């Protein structure tokens, strides 16, 4: 486990940390969990000519954070009718995924070690997503919106 989210994290050692994290995390789809599925190839395709930008939505869920259905829906709605690649970046093992699968069937999950900070999750997810336009949606601390029937949370 790599300590993250401290003041000591400088720009110079961030790249090294990212490589260490890369070994510790996997990308997976809800329907085939357990199958490693890095999407670096999709990220490489960003440079190919297209008529419209590719859009990605990163949902950032550090430990004990949740995102409400309304916020996720709003994040998706902001891009209109465009196809959006949804990536949920979690610190620790996510639970209660069924609601999310219903809402965003093809969401991918980026599983980082427990304790990974919000900023590191964001950076790691950014390295993975293929979007030209990437929207980042941060979850809220669990006690704050526990009454809102959380869509997904990390334990």
């Amino acid at each position: 486990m790599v300590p993250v989210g401290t003041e000591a994290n400088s720009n110079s050692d961030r790249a090294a940390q990212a490589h260490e994290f890369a070994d510790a995390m996997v990308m997976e789809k809800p329907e085939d969990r357990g199958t490693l599925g890095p999407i670096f190839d999709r990220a490489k395709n960003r440079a190919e000519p297209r008529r419209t930008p590719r859009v990605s939505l990163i949902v950032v869920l550090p430990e004990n954070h949740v995102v409400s259905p309304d916020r996720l829906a709003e994040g998706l709605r902001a891009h209109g009718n465009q196809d959006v690649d949804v990536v949920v970046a979690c610190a620790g093992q996510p639970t209660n995924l069924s609601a999310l699968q219903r809402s965003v069937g093809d969401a991918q999950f980026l599983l980082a070690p427990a304790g990974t900070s919000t900023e590191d999750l964001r950076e790691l997810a950014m390295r993975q997503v293929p979007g030209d336009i990437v929207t980042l949606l941060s979850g809220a601390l669990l006690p704050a919106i526990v009454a809102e029937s959380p869509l997904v949370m990390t334990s």
Partner: protein
Amino acid sequence: MSSSRVLSVIVPVRDGNATLARTLTAILASELPRDDYELIVVDDVSSDSSPELAARYADTVVRLTARKSGAAYARNRGAELARGEFLAFVDADAMVRPHTLPRMLGILSDHPVLDAVSASHDQTAGANNIVSQYWNLLLHFGEQRHAGTSGNVASPCAMIRRHVFLSAGMYDEWRFETARLEGIEFAQRLEDAGRTVLSSKDLAITGLKRWNLRSLSREVWDRSALLARSLGYQRTRVAVPSDVVFTLSRALAPAMAVLFFLAISAAFVPTPSASIKAAIVLMGAVALNFPAYLSFARARGILFAIAVAPLHMLMQAVNGLGLCAGWVLRDAVGDREPDAATQAYAEVGVEIWPPVPRASGR
């Protein structure tokens, strides 16, 4: 993410690893409720990890691909995505103070007659080498002198009503691929359209970029060449429509530069009075720039003003040469335009991502 955010803060960046984190941290430390603004970073084909660094702080990161297109183009792409009623443009090497954005927002909210407001550099510099200190002080000096109702609606930090920005045609991404002059051209365009721009002395930011002799010379060269080739030419044509005066005014800048170099050269002719000639020329140069040197001395002391005098003269020489080059290019080649392929794409109207630069300001 709320759809009712008041402000969209847009930060264009290219290879900004050295300063971007401080810039974004400063924006997030603004005395504004976090839900009141969105932070959009537009990466102009960086070769470093600027997009990943931006993702640590931003709500939206736009990754441009294919070719570097400049800050004007990047800001326009950010504005197209923005949903705030007001747009704030902050350079990736500028550090706002906690009250800068709230005060700008307050000024525009309280004064409906104002359409845009711009901040200026303060006297401090993020880097402590003498070149950076000098350049920040010079920018501060120039911006303070010209503060009032004209400004630079782009660098280092400016805020504008979104509907005004869009209706004015956004930044001219066609001509301003290099140099930071698109904000000056845009401010002029706004004023021509009857809009009001306030350049405030009291709203200040700190420049973070570490300049060296080479990068500063390049910056001054780009600015002066583009100024003479494009922006200055257009301004002169508008201000001086008479053919005779127009021709004379076109010749003025290169003539002054040539005279300057002749004077400097004459000072070094090996005659018994060479040192006297040199002293006279130097005194003339100092006298012409006395307000600037006075400003340097007040900010950093007399020794600093003396120390940067050779640097200031060198930059003036680069500026003169750049102006000459700009005028020559204007006559030989014409106004600044994108490469032929980009022009062809624009003419045909091909729809691609990232979009082909548009000549919005013309």
